[in-house]
């Protein structure tokens, strides 16, 4: 009973978060100056009649949130015929607007690019998780030694390193050795099969490495402190007294118990990782949604900017919700939240 209560609360919170993000996305592009649709519809170079037509076409003649006039006359359904409901309606139909620059549907552009970012983020997160868990475990076990100090220094240093700058340095260092830009050598097509995918793999090395070097540090620090917590428990002393080897204790006791929090941390870290993906994709011209966001900023392509932000935010929220649910399944103690 409590378990299901916990899940319901988490799902509700996820839904509220999604609603706030959607509302924010809508409001931001109407409150802040610079909405080009409004600017076009107000242009003095158009005739009054033309302006009116444009306003109707963009739905700007409707009230923003709620039609109070119609609500007063008892027309409850009509009162919701507003810009906001039109926006929600379009969103539910997968309509995110049209790019100013390429004149294509934003949803189409995103669909084409999103898997590339998923591949990059998945590769980066996997590598940094593996590295972070290993190094954190070693650092906690050898606490106070030179190995621990070295690992901590690395974590501190990479914490202070901007992702994009590390990318630039790796790009300079690897020039001539590895492909430094794009996703695939021009000319190759997916139909080429093996050749194509190894080429993509080579292009993936530098961006993945950049993300891994930066995002390992937080996993190291969390793993280190949580393993240290586990190692100071009495049952570790018992295991040791029973003659269990250090390696076995580390593997079966410490790793198992310290791994649980990593599920939540990895999901929370995703919120930073997508920020890193924007920088890494910009540096290495990786044609995913991060690079798209940078291009949208540069060309003031607001529908694309809005759509990309919505996609990234929704992805992170859903990932966190999944992690919460997974965590409560893995660890039955999590009930009260």
């Amino acid at each position, binding site marked *: 009973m409590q378990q299901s209560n916990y899940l319901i609360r988490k799902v509700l919170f996820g839904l509220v978060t999604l609603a706030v993000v959607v509302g924010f996305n809508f409001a931001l592009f109407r409150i802040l100056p610079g909405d080009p649709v409004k600017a076009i519809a107000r242009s003095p170079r158009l005739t009054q009649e033309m302006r009116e037509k444009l306003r109707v076409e963009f739905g700007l003649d409707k009230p923003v949130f709620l039609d109070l006039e119609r609500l007063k006359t008892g027309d409850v359904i009509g009162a919701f015929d507003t810009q906001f409901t039109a926006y929600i309606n379009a969103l539910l139909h997968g309509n995110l607007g049209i790019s100013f620059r390429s004149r294509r549907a934003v949803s189409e552009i995103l669909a084409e690019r999103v898997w590339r970012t998923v591949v990059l983020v998945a590769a980066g997160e996997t590598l940094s998780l593996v590295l972070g868990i290993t190094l954190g475990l070693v650092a906690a076990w050898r606490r106070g030694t030179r190995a621990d100090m070295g690992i901590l220094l690395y974590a501190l*240093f990479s914490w202070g390193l901007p*992702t994009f*700058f590390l990318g630039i340095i790796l790009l300079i260092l690897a020039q001539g050795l590895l492909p430094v830009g794009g996703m695939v050598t021009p000319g190759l097509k997916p139909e080429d099969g093996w050749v194509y995918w190894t080429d993509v793999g080579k292009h993936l090395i530098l961006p993945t490495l950049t993300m891994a070097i930066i995002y390992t540090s937080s996993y190291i620090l969390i793993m280190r402190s949580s393993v240290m917590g586990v190692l100071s428990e009495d049952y570790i002393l018992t295991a040791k007294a029973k003659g269990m080897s250090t390696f076995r*204790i580390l593997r079966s006791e410490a790793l198992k118990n310290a791994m649980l929090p990593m599920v939540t941390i990895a999901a929370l870290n995703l919120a930073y990782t997508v920020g890193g993906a*924007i920088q890494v994709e910009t540096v290495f011209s990786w044609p995913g949604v991060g690079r798209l*966001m940078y291009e949208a900023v540069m060309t003031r392509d607001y529908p694309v900017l809005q759509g990309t*932000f919505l996609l990234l935010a929704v992805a992170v929220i859903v990932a966190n919700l999944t992690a919460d649910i997974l965590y409560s399944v893995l660890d039955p103690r999590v009930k009260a939240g």
Partner: protein
Amino acid sequence: MTMQQLREIGRAFIRRPAGIVGLIMLLVVVLVAIAAPWLAPYHPKDKIDVSPGDLLTPPDSEHLLGRDDAGRDVLSQLIYGARVSLTVGFVASFMSMVIGTTIGLVAGYRGGRIDSLSMRLVDFLLVIPDLPLMLVIISMWGRGLWKIILVIGLLGWTVTARLVRSQVLSIKERCYILRARVIGASHYRIAARHILPQVMPLVIAEAVLAVSGAIIAESSLSFLGLGDPTLVSWGMMLNFAFERAISRRAWWFLLPPGFAIVWVSVGLILIGSTLEEIVNPSLKTHHLFDPRRMMARIAGRVPKEPAPDHTALVETERAE
């Protein structure tokens, strides 16, 4: 935080090499930022005459770090850039500190609905990807130093709020808070005079770390083309360098601003984590590490304390 506490923290701080190194690294940048008009050979806003041959020239005696893609002196921009980074870092972090401490204090002390509401807000902000949100806000709102500071400061208080709340939750159960309550101290007085001083050292350690976070956030925004167009920041130098100088292999334009960011943020992280270590000592040992070797290491580093002088103790007892 009493003077006594401050003195103790200071004494512990100067005994740690990491903290000292960090402090020196930060001080260098602060001094450079203050003395920028005297240190910089050129002013970044001066009108300059350039011919096409002056663009992206490598370092020479006249321009110690060469010239950028507009023929301007890189060293001078680097020196003035310290001002932007430090301003953004310290002001934004101060904002986050004030907001985070207030919310954490109120949430932890009052509990109930205020607590759960503000913690849900924290959860919410933690799930929203920061950088994309900042990109969207700044590109809609317009570029400017104060807008960048506001956005970074208003989005960065969550960690502090959580930290303060968890501290307050444990402090408010202590006996002296109960005593103060019984005597009739107001909630405001208890929060401000009895709880706040207890959490301040941790908050300050966290705020120092947040300065480096804010500096990195500003540089990322500037690198992505959303820096204040009227100022030259390190991130913006990297933006120009990346767009125009990388194919020319103009390392003198590309590397200095990047290493400047790393320098100041590593300095701040060293200070912040040293402070955290001092004010938040969780000196747990664990059972897998050979204690003899550990003792040997500690003994090798720390000078032996003189054996306690029992006669002196007896003397003071007598004097009383």
